[in-house]
């Protein structure tokens, strides 16, 4: 890896100041996406700003009708949160499927969302629940946040501090896990919160996470697997690689959406 300067601020304000002084710098959260990419010399940040000592960025708490998760909360801690398991088991199940136990011990929700890997799980949960991404500058709706593969609405110097998930009465995530990497070959998050119905897909789209409006429309009548029986989505715009063709990914989207609906209704 190329060398860099290393900083450990203790407040969000200090971290933002360090980013401003190091325009080619990057934030370091769990490091389990960034460090491997740096080792491959695919990224060359001039500085790393480690967020692990920043106060007030971890924890899962209930706030009104939402669950608010600190950006530096590690996957294992989100998965084990009793608050979340009680409030929204469908969301609590998401981090348990990420990577392997050691990755879950280090990786963070904020890091995952900021990276917006097209095969990552959390982007589907955020979009599938209509989450709000809270930064040091503003609040961003998930619908506006994920802007394409590895790209987000985050501006220079902007730091995710929390993610707020509205509690959906029914929600579930189904994932076809790549057996080696643990990433989603395809993952589908479904939710129903009053009249708001969402179907969000990760792993499949060549432009990152997306919603399936045709499924959402069909589910308005009844939020059940039966409502989308026989429905498909076009293979056009699906990822293609050695692991799966666009047609197979499109097929998986419909299959996993039905499974997720069955799980959400169970």
């Amino acid at each position: 890896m190329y060398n860099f300067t290393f900083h450990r601020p203790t407040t969000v304000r200090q971290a933002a100041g360090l980013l401003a002084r190091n325009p080619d710098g990057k934030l370091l959260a769990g490091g389990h996406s960034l460090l491997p990419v740096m080792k491959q010399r695919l990224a060359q940040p001039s500085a790393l700003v480690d967020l692990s000592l920043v106060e007030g960025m971890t924890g899962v708490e209930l706030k009104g009708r939402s669950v608010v998760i600190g950006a530096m909360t590690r996957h294992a801690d989100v998965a084990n949160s009793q608050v979340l398991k009680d409030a929204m088991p469908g969301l609590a199940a998401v981090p348990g499927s990420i990577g392997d136990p050691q990755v879950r011990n280090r990786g963070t929700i904020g890091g995952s969302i900021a990276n917006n890997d097209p095969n990552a799980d959390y982007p589907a949960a955020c979009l599938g629940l209509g989450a709000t991404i809270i930064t040091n500058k503003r609040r961003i709706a998930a619908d506006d946040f994920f802007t394409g593969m590895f790209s987000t609405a985050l501006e220079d110097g902007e730091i995710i501090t929390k993610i707020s998930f509205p509690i959906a009465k029914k929600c579930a995530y189904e994932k076809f896990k790549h057996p080696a990497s643990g990433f989603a070959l395809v993952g589908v998050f479904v939710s129903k919160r009053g009249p708001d119905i969402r179907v969000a897909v990760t792993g499949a789209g060549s432009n990152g996470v997306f919603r399936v409006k045709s499924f959402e429309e069909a589910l308005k009548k009844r939020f059940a697997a039966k409502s989308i029986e026989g429905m498909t989505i076009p293979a056009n715009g699906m990822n293609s690689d050695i692991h799966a063709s666009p047609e197979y990914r499109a097929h998986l989207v419909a299959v996993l959406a039905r499974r997720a609906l069955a799980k959400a209704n169970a």
Partner: protein
Amino acid sequence: MATVSMTVNGKAVTGDVEPRTLLVQFLRENLRLTGTHVGCDTSQCGACIIHLDGIAAKACTTLALQCEGAKITTIEGLAEPGGKLHPMQEAFREHHGLQCGYCTPGMIMSALDIVRRNGNNLDEHTIRDQLDGNICRCTGYHNIVKAIEAGAKAMAK
């Protein structure tokens, strides 16, 4: 260069490192604790697993500077000072939970984390599922799984 200080296997250590120095390099090259291995160097094989403040982590995907002030335990820190093996190490010996031995340190550090998370009564399915982050290129998983089940029970005694 920067200076990093941490506690490794109960001993306070300090060293000069580059910001890009990985924890596994610091352990192996600065401290000469070569029990922690580098298998894949791409965060997949688990040969480099250590405990960082009591929790299993991959030392190849952690910077030494991220461990400033932390408590690290490596495979060298498990046996008693007189040389008596930790119950989990003893179980690996007893059940021959290794072939070439390269993955063993990581397997044992990972096994202890499985016990931390799931308790001392482990079934085969749980062990295999939770060993997701450890690869044995000899494919000697069968005895590793048996060793972990026995080692976890022995730790409760």
